[in-house]
């Protein structure tokens, strides 16, 4: 007799948020352990999420009503529904999770007045960001949470929070997880964190230089091919960013880093060899090479030159530039190896 309960008119944003909140609260510990009750409660959540998605993004033909979207956003923050979304997410079904991810990005970018109130909410409830990070441990929801997390870190304040949070360190573990899809998602987030907000990253690297590169070294020397290749590529991406130039200068003055890059130039993968060369060249081209860097280059110059002669960029348009750089680097290594005062 379901026609008795059919809604006679569309819900207002306030009513819908209340219905969402009630249905989420319905997923309490008592319900969750009972199969039938849980099924029913989840159905309710799913139904509400479909309505929410419709209100926030329209149905492809009808554009959403922006007033409703604003009211809905405000109400969701006011009623702490944002926190409920995340805490209950592990219980949701497949479609409900996807609908939530879809709505999440719309909610975050929604401006009410001059502020993004959901971003503000996340700033004030930053433990939710840590919650999203540790979701990488749960294979079933890792990708949904990863998507939501990347939406969050588009905003500098939220990205900065994670960089400084103890949970950031977990990424060094997550990017090497055996499941490729989860590890890939974690890596996408890790990369965004280290490349999207230059000043925040630069400040972070300055303050945590030693811990960070100690951890990063583990990625570069990982036995997992993908971890090695990606982390090497990413290293050159953020190290060569202008705001990080002081980090780069510090990095290329240290022998332990040079040794790792030299090992990567000998990797069995051609792609890794070439990426390594693009960092190695900075060590060599550095006009203010410290003495111990020069000593390493001089000591290994024969092997290095042999390696470089065999290295080719493969097919590609930047072939000429590569050869030119290679030649300069070879010359510089030869010069360094002939310096008289390096023996000791």
């Amino acid at each position: 007799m379901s026609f008795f309960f059919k809604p006679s008119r569309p819900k207002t944003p306030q009513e819908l948020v209340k219905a969402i909140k009630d249905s989420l609260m319905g997923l309490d510990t008592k319900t969750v352990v009972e199969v039938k009750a849980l099924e029913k409660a989840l159905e309710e959540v799913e139904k509400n999420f479909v309505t929410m998605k419709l209100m926030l993004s329209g149905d492809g033909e009808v554009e959403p009503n922006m007033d409703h979207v604003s009211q809905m956003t405000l109400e969701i923050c006011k009623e702490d529904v944002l926190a409920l979304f995340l805490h209950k997410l592990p219980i949701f079904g497949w479609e409900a999770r996807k609908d939530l991810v879809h709505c999440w990005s719309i909610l975050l970018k929604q401006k009410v007045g001059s502020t993004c109130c959901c971003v503000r909410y996340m700033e004030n409830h930053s433990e939710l960001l840590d919650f999203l990070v540790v979701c990488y441990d749960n294979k079933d929801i890792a990708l949904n949470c990863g998507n939501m997390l990347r939406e969050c870190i588009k905003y500098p304040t939220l990205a900065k929070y994670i960089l400084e949070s103890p949970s950031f360190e977990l990424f060094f573990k997550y990017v090497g997880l055996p499941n490729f899809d989860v590890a890939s998602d974690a890596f996408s987030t890790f990369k965004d964190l280290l490349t999207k907000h230059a000043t925040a990253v630069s400040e972070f690297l300055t303050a945590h230089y030693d811990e960070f590169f100690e951890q990063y070294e583990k990625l570069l020397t990982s036995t997992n091919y993908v971890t090695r290749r990606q982390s090497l590529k990413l290293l050159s991406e953020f190290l060569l960013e202008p705001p990080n130039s002081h980090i780069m200068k510090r990095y290329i003055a240290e022998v332990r880093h040079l040794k790792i890059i030299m090992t990567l130039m000998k990797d069995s993968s051609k792609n890794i060899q070439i990426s390594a060369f693009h960092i190695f060249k900075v060590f060599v081209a550095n006009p203010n090479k410290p003495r111990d860097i020069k000593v390493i280059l001089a000591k290994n110059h024969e092997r290095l030159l042999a390696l470089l002669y065999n290295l080719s960029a493969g097919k590609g348009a930047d072939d000429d530039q590569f050869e030119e750089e290679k030649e300069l680097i070879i010359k510089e290594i030869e010069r360094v190896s002939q310096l008289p005062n390096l023996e000791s």
Partner: protein
Amino acid sequence: MGKLGTGQRSYSANQNDYKLLEEVGYGASATVFRAIYLPFNEVVAVKCLDLDRCNSNLDDIRREAQTMSLIDHPNVIRAFCSFVVDRNLWVVMPFMAEGSCLHLMKIAYQDGFEESAICSILKEALKALEYLHRHGHIHRDVKAGNILLDTNGVVKLADFGVSACMFDRGDRQRSRNTFVGTPCWMAPEVLQPGSGYDFKADIWSFGITALELAHGHAPFSKYPPMKVLLMTIQNAPPGLDYDRDKRFSKSFKEMVAMCLVKDQTKRPTAEKLLKHSFFKHAKPAELSVKKLFADLPPLWNRVKALQVCLARLLFLY
């Protein structure tokens, strides 16, 4: 809780749990094996992708893995799991015992299938496209070689080698303007510089796939890629209007013509196309598709037979 059940069985990311058997398919940088997942003693397909052959970067592959894990539709091949083994990525997928439509045509139906089988296959593939488009994904490589068949007649669309996500802005946008896929199946707007790629390009490829299933090969398939490119842009769209096409119904011809309109805005969406009269009377795939495999040897023998044929051809030249 049907929808919750999708993650029911989980497959390990440990190579020792998989025993690779025969090779059942191969491409530029990937080989597909029939394999046994030892803990369940279950037959699966394992696609081994040589990552060192993918130059530039791994971003596309990472994205493909993420996309495939967030897809759940009975007509779309889903990855059970994927993991790195040496320099390869292993992607574990359901094993589709009869291989691709392209493969089946090469071995037993050189001149294409009969209409009722085509109708069932296309309808299943279109359901997959409708789902992907609704979730913001463009497939970008719809063709008979990517429509896989199982012994029970189940039809699934495979291979997101080049799929892009429409919801994303930024770097993905760029990758969407690059030239990927096979020219025979490509929409005119995709072949022209400047114009972007949208989901209507899949509808064109779908129309070409219909012709492919009807004739045993895609139109222009005997020409070199550059020639195909020019013909797609300059010639009138191909269709079912040769003498040999008399055997096909009017509604089939009409459906194909709707997909193969050069102006992408005039092409129907997947959702609309599904409602076309051609698909109204589609027989269940279990019946019309299953009939196609009667009396054929198992897939792995067929692959071997095909390889022998190809080798012989090469030898002749």
